[in-house]
């Protein structure tokens, strides 16, 4: 359930809302309009704003399917969405892609599949929707309403770019109560408490709770000027924009305007169901390094030119960085002519993000300095990022109640496997299933089943279908965990599915 706190203390929230309204009003009085505010807009009174915004927001109910403990499960969760176009595009948080907390266990590292979306508006309208695209960096997504009648238009928000977002500026938020409270729209208020110099001027916010992640931020004229981008909550919320910062972040519209434009284009190009749920903004380039901020004191001590930089802690084997000759402890100070002005942990994310704006095949020129005083230029041709554990392909064996995934680079690095090592990774296993009773556990790497080598998902499937055909009394799994190997023997009961519960 997404809104348990509201259900339990609805009255408290109403009172708090009233306090916020008072605070908001005083702020609006106090804050001078920005110097170049663009075309003059009319300040909307709170009740007028309420009436205008309420029909644009919906509770988005989404169903996720994932494999946990070797079994397929579904969870139903809710998130806020806002309609952004008259033909029914809906902006939501990218958190819907990640496992949600539920009564059952979280998915065992696997990315859940999004099975369905349904929208519930305060006025009783209900619609089905599907994914247009997600953006990993922004952690935002756009849905398209699929069951609109011909010519039907939707009340939607409009965006404003010229908003300056001064410190102390008040913003409006809106969410819906749960169904049992009649999906009443709830007005809220947020305040910009700081402007963070990193990430190109994002806002630190107060007055925003976790269920508003991805929700719009309105200015006093009733235009959307940003979204809530990060709220301290479970690590499952998705990519953390700023891992070091545990505050609430507001993302100005300028940051995601391109994404929305791309979604609109995508939508007009393929208005029917079944289009690819990705925006064609190109694959992100991959460098293949781990790094940390250089820090002023260390830079001074090593005699590195002032202005920031990153120290490479690891160069991934087989990566473009390795091919270009980068090494651990190299210090990168410039990237394509610009200083890498990373000084602290919180400055690091923009550097990583900037690399992802490049496409595979593009060349990035770094200036590298070393503790020895050597300064040189290094050109790296980026490649496509390797598949990660989260996105790895998975296969399921129902009889053995076992799910495996392909061996991805991040798993290799985590297990410190030598480059030639092969196998499939146990991703989920039912403890009382045949493979669970044999002692197979998540994270083990299956390298052989009976006499058949398992090098990848296909050879795993082959080996398991061979087992299915021959129905042996004992099945031998040879697994690796870290650097040790071990044998596990499953003793399947092949008569199990044949009697009793009718198939």
């Amino acid at each position, binding site marked *: 359930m997404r809104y348990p706190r509201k259900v339990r203390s609805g009255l408290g929230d109403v009172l708090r809302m009233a306090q916020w309204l008072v605070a908001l009003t005083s702020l609006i009085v106090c804050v001078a309009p920005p110097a170049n505010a663009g075309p003059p807009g009319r300040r909307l009174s709170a009740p007028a704003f309420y009436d205008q915004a309420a029909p644009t927001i919906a509770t988005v109910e989404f169903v996720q399917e994932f494999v946990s403990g070797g079994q397929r499960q579904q969870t139903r969760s809710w998130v806020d969405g806002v309609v952004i176009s008259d033909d029914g595009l809906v902006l939501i948080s990218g958190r819907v892609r990640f496992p949600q907390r539920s009564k059952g266990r979280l998915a065992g590292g696997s990315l859940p599949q999004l099975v369905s979306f349904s929208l519930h508006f305060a006025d009783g309208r209900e619609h089905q929707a599907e994914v247009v695209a997600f953006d990993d960096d922004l952690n935002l997504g756009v849905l398209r309403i699929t069951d609109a009648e011909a010519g039907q238009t939707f009340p939607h928000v409009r965006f404003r770019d010229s908003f300056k977002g001064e410190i102390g500026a008040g913003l409006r938020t809106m969410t819906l109560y749960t169904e049992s409270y009649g999906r009443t729209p709830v007005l809220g208020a947020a305040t910009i408490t700081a402007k963070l110099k990193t990430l190109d001027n994002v806002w630190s916010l107060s007055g925003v709770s976790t269920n508003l992640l991805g929700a719009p931020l309105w200015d006093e004229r009733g235009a959307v000027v940003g979204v809530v981008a990060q709220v301290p909550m479970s690590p499952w919320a998705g990519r953390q924009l700023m891992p070091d910062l545990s505050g609430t972040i507001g993302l100005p519209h300028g940051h995601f305007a391109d994404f929305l434009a791309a979604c609109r284009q995508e939508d007009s190009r393929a208005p029917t169901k079944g289009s690819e749920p990705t925006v064609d903004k190109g694959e992100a380039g991959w460098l293949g390094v781990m790094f940390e901020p250089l820090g002023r004191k260390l830079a001074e*001590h*090593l005699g590195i030119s002032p202005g920031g930089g990153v*120290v490479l802690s690891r160069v991934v084997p087989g990566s473009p960085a390795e091919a270009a000759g980068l090494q651990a*402890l190299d210090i990168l100070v410039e990237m394509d002519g610009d200083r890498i002005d990373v000084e602290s942990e919180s400055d690091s994310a923009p550097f990583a993000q900037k690399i992802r704006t490049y496409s595979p095949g593009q060349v990035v020129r770094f200036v590298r300095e070393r*503790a020895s005083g050597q300064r040189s230029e290094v050109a790296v041709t980026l490649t496509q990022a390797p598949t990660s554990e989260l996105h790895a392909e998975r296969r399921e064996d129902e009889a053995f109640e076992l799910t495996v995934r392909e061996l991805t680079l991040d798993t290799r690095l985590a297990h*410190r496997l030598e480059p030639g090592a092969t196998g499939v990774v146990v991703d989920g296993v039912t403890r009382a299933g045949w493979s669970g009773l044999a002692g197979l556990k998540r994270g083990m790497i299956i390298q052989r089943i009976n006499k058949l080598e398992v090098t990848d998902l296909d050879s795993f499937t082959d080996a398991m279908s061979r087992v299915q055909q021959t129905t042996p009394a*004992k099945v031998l799994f040879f697994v690796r965990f870290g*650097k040790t*190997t071990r*044998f596990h023997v499953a003793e399947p009961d092949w008569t199990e599915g044949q009697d009793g519960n009718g198939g």
Partner: protein
Amino acid sequence: MTQHHGDAILRPMRSSTLIALLLALGTTLACPGFVGATDLQTSIQRVEARALPALVNIQPVTESYTRGERRKHASVGSGFLIDPEGHIVTNYHVAGKASQLMVTLSNKERIEAELVGGDPLTDLAVIRIPKEAVTDYGLTPLQFGNSAQLRAGAFVLALGSPLDLARTLTFGIVSNTERYLREGMTLPTGERTGEFNTWIQTDAAINPGNSGGPLVNLDGQVVGVNARGAVLADNIGFAIPATTARQVVADLIATGEVTRSYIGVRFQPLRDWEELFGMEEPRGVLISSVEQGAPGETAGLQAGDILLSYGGSPLLVRFEEELPSLYQRISETKVGSSVALRVLRRGQSEELDLEVSTVSTGKLSGERFEAEAWGFTVKEITDQMVFDLDLVSGDGVLVEGVLTGGPAHRGRLGRGVVIESLAGEVVTDLESFKSRYEELKGTKPGAVLLQVRAYESLRYVLLQMTSDSAPTGELP
């Protein structure tokens, strides 16, 4: 429904504090007259008279380095005299890392003892009191019995200082003679243990403080060294068998250490899996894992091989209780000798003859050192640590602890990383670290650059000394 069963925690039985509290909870139990078992009573009384004089209460002061500075800890354990020379057997986790040892004898006299040697892999240690004390106080040493002949059900007494209650006798039977323990195989001192022995399980009460005390039979012979008990369970205690202890103690007295052979091979019991490995009858033992670069790999052994014989004598290991004696047998091989192996390989009908050259296990854990001025402690890296901690090499020193608020902590030095270089010079071992530290520790205020490694990742750590980083002890 999933059924939960409470997992008992196996814990070494060294006592620390909390004793007063536990005593306060104690109640008086009236003991009714016991008739009809006079023989048993006589036997127990004889054992008491025979064994109690050899019992000692050990009060070690041990040093820990895990918080980034050298810290002292006091605890309590037990031990027993085994010869007129003043040698006392106890657990490694009681005395193996003691910087100071005081013992209270059965006549309540308190004297100082010294450490002779310790063996973490069997959790045994030997300490010594002056032999004059043995004669002057008329102490009588205990003898080891033959634990191999022990049967479940045999009466036994545990002697020791549970909760520092010195000269305590508890009574029970041997519950099992060959218990194999999978859990709790790490000592409080950090080393792994228990690889080379099964355990004698007893229902004679074993509590914290019993560690190192003798488990004796009704002939007054030591059949085991009490070492651990199951917490959250009743009357489940474990002792190291006398046959293991006798050998280890002899080695420790002779050389101060136990030398073992090592081939870097892990085994699994064969159970009823013979068909899966191409055999009609169960033979040999299954090789489950071969450590890279170890003698076993050099010899050509592979995971999945069945080792049929070692040094000419055939093997059969079907159950995990049989594993410790196999590891023990390999460890007893003369270091550096060549041993003939016979192997059955999957998919091959021919048996292979291979030869393995053993190497010494070496030291399990390294010496420690406190870099006081910098607020961290380091440890020498031994070959076994390279394997246990999966380190990239044996070069450098391992950071064992970082003192909160110190220069290392401020510089974000982490526990468990390896220092590879110090102010531009390569650190090869603990000695090179120490000498470089002595040169540099006066650098204040100033900065010292470390290059550290965590597995495949490298980073710089800058230790910044401020003029006030070492407290002078003066009041403002």
